[in-house]
């Protein structure tokens, strides 16, 4: 168990160290003698070596050991760093990343011999002070085995002590009092074992079930299952096997668990429960037990700490500069006290709970207005109103707070790009300077994960197709070095990401002829197209402007995939280009995927939510204003012809609004496309928590997800992009 935790700690730590290595090597490329960075890289390699050694990742230890040795020599000015060495080191970094991947996938087959040999080749160029180090390593290993045996001994002595303890134990009558029956010898022994273990708590749970429960025995079964999930069941009254015979409405369970009382309460509270009492019986153990507890724990604890000792010892042996290592440790400690690492699932759980709170809040508001209708403006209703507005404020604050927890700086994505641009520009023989701005701009973690690949593609595109070669640039009278400018900033509740290059831009005429030759558009269309429309041709599936597919940007994904990804995130992508001057790609994304602002509409009896980002305007038109073009219904709004969809029709809800004189049309847009949804009524704007419909049974084209309304009913969220695409295809 503790092994797994160690591994997770190691992975988190290692990712950080690899990032430091990466940044360090990139900086060293520009300034090969910067001592500060050399030290930083050395320390990162050293930490990685130590960590990987501890968890037994030998391959990683081997590589980082060589890296460390090289940087040790560089530090001592016994070796001069060259670009070719950096190339090898970047390769090593890639392999280290692969090795990290192994931990996740569980397939340990990465071949490190090639890079390892290259590294050793570099080492061989220098004098070889390696032997000394190897000896030290051996010494470390011996130390570890010694400690292992100490641990084993410690466990033995613990076992003996426990036996003694079992004989001594006599207390715990409050337990049999609670459970309402005498404990058998085995049960008493189990109880004592739990009391003696500092990690385990002994819980007594008393559950009473309400009358409206349908199948009491099933419910009991679930309670038992939950208890077993949470810990170890010791005993119960009535016994588990007897449950089914007599349908009891009350059960008492005694079990041990490491989780806290609150967790248990949360897990066990179900709608059928009338009352539940949870007692931590561990809190008041027999004084006799407590006295024997102390000496019992100490022999186990000591060896537990000790395995860390060799690390510290190693650090002192290896680091010549003793003063620096402790300084860094202090720094790390300071960091630890201000930040905590939390499993993102826990935050997601919290967000879900907050989502439910938001739903309840909406429910209160509705109740209040209902009450006001019945009772009028009596003082109590006014009081309720005030309380609700308080509740709303607190709920909003809490929700925002939790959303903040999920926010991470976009640097998590941006930090990958310097390396990509470096490798790519070398390969293509271009000179490119990547300028990154706004890397601290925060956005939701889920958005960061989703946007990573599309951004990578766009960056590759800029480098590959945007920036010209040095000769071309010289001929065009530009600076030899091209610039790719990456910027991120907030705008309202959106984040804007810009990718700007001063390359050759997109040639609209070439674009058009290409699209025609590929049969994507007609020649007549092309002539009528504005430049703005034409640029968007790059987003069509099957369009690629590269003369030959390079393995760099043409990895089977095109701009159409980028656009699809951005669409899926409810985002917008725009291209502005000027021939000879460069291209600007702008991506606008919502800060979060969990909550969106919507326009709630009524379609027949159902409620449909339309994402507000897509809503352009709301119009009311009379029947006579709807006309047909090529058998499709359309309306004219301010000189623009807009196709309309009747939501009741496409969602097959029965055609109610067909005969109405006036209908409401919600005009929605995506990029430059506009369509109108005919609805039966507007309910209002509301922020909703998105619940995905992740079951193929309810997978429905045109529905993006569901959400729970104030009255507890479920509203469906309209997938605007799919519906617009559908209309475009039918045209």
């Amino acid at each position, binding site marked *: 168990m503790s092994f797994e935790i160690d591994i997770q700690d190691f992975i988190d730590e290692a990712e950080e160290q690899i990032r430091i290595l990466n940044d360090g090597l990139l900086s060293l490329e520009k300034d090969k003698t910067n001592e500060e960075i050399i030290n930083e890289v050395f320390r990162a390699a050293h930490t990685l070596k130590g960590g990987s050694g501890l968890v037994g990742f030998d391959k990683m230890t081997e590589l980082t050991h060589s890296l460390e040795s090289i940087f040790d020599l560089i530090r001592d000015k016994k070796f001069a760093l060259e670009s070719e060495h950096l190339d090898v080191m970047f390769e090593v970094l890639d392999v280290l990343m692969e090795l990290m991947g192994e931990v996740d996938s569980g397939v340990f087959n990465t071949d490190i011999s090639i890079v390892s040999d290259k590294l050793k080749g570099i080492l061989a160029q220098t004098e070889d002070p390696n032997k000394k180090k190897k000896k030290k390593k051996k010494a470390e290993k011996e130390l570890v085995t010694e400690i292992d045996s100490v641990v084993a001994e410690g466990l033995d002595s613990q076992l003996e002590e426990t036996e003694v303890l079992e004989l001594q134990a006599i207390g715990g009558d409050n337990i049999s009092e609670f459970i309402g029956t005498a404990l058998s010898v085995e049960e008493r022994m189990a109880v004592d074992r739990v009391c003696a273990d500092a990690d385990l708590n002994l819980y007594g749970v008393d559950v009473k079930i309400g009358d409206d429960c*349908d*199948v009491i*025995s*099933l419910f009991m*079964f*679930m309670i038992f*299952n939950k208890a077993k999930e949470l810990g170890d069941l010791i005993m119960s009254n009535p016994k588990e096997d007897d449950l*089914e015979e007599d349908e009891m409405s009350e059960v008492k369970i005694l079990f041990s668990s490491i989780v806290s009382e609150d967790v248990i309460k949360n897990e066990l509270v*179900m*709608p059928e429960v009338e009352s539940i009492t949870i007692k931590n019986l561990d809190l008041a153990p027999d004084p006799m037990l407590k006295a024997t507890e102390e000496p019992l724990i100490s022999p186990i604890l000591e060896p537990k700490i000790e395995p860390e000792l060799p690390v510290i010892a190693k650090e002192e042996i290896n680091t010549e500069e003793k003063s620096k290592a402790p300084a860094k440790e202090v720094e790390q400690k300071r960091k630890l006290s201000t930040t905590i690492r939390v499993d993102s699932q826990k935050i997601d759980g919290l967000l*879900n*709970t907050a*989502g*439910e709170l938001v*739903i309840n809040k909406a429910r209160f508001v509705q109740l209040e207005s209902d009450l006001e209708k019945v009772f009028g403006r009596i003082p109590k209703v006014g009081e309720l109103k005030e309380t609700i507005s308080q509740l709303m404020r607190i709920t909003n604050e809490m929700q925002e707070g939790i959303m903040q927890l999920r926010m991470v700086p976009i640097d998590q994505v941006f930090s990958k790009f310097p390396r990509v641009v470096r490798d790519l520009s070398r390969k293509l023989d271009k000179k490119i300077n990547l300028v990154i701005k706004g890397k601290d701009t925060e956005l939701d973690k889920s958005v960061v994960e989703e946007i990573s690949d599309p951004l990578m593609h766009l960056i590759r595109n800029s480098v590959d197709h945007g920036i010209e070669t040095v000769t071309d640039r010289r001929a065009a009278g530009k600076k030899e070095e091209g610039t790719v400018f990456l910027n991120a900033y907030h705008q309202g509740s959106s984040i804007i990401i810009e990718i700007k290059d001063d390359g050759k831009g997109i040639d609209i005429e070439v674009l058009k002829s290409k699209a025609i030759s590929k049969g994507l558009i007609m020649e007549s269309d092309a002539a009528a197209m504005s430049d703005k429309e034409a640029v968007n041709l790059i987003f069509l599936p099957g369009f690629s402007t590269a003369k030959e597919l390079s393995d760099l940007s043409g990895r089977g994904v095109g701009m159409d995939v980028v656009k699809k990804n951005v669409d899926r995130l409810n985002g917008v992508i725009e291209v502005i280009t000027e021939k000879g001057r460069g291209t600007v790609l702008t991506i606008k994304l919502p800060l979060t995927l969990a909550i969106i602002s919507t326009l709630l509409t009524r379609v027949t009896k*159902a409620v449909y939510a339309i994402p507000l980002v897509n809503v352009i305007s709301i119009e009311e038109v009379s029947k006579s204003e709807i006309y047909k073009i090529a058998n499709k219904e359309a309306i004219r709004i301010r000189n623009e012809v807009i196709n309309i969809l009747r939501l009741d029709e*496409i*969602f*097959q*809800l029965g055609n109610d609004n067909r005969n109405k004189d006036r209908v409401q049309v919600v005009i929605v847009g995506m990029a430059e496309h506009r369509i109108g949804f005919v609805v039966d009524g507007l309910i209002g704007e509301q922020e909703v928590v998105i*619940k995905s*419909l*992740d*079951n*193929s*049974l*309810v*997978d*429905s*084209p*045109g*529905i993006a997800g*569901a*959400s*729970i309304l104030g009255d*507890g*009913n*479920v*509203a*469906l969220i309209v997938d605007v992009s799919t519906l617009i695409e559908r209309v475009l295809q039918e045209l």
Partner: protein
Amino acid sequence: MEKDSKEEELALNIDAELFTKEEDIYQLVTFLLGEEMYGIDILAVQEIIRMENITEIPRTVDYVEGVINLRGKVIPVIDLRKRFNLPIQDETKDTRIIVVEIEDKIIGMIVDGVSKVLRLPASLVEPPSPIVGGIDSNYIKGVGKVNENLIILLDLTKINDSSMNIM
């Protein structure tokens, strides 16, 4: 030495006994659908709730009734009668939704009424004959007999399998 091996044998025997004992008994939640009684594995059942407002999802197969709000979770609900091509019946006061977990997905199944939890020895369960109670034998794991009553054991994985729709 001899004593040791004897003890070992004994331990093995006890293990085997426990093992077969557990293997031999089906723990079932039983419910009614028309005239027949059906049983599903108790471990798959999350809870049993009364009928509530179901939001219809457009363009789904006919036995998918829609989705419900289960304490903040949105879960799909299917009508088992429609799933098995049994005659449609109006909701009564006994109608329930059994919430089950099938292959990590949570769905609700509308049934005519829930009866009880039952332990059924495997020896009383027979493999399905081609047609039982009017539903396709593909959905059935076996048929159990308790006091002259037949209990049809359902194979839940098949119920969630949309490739079975075509039939």
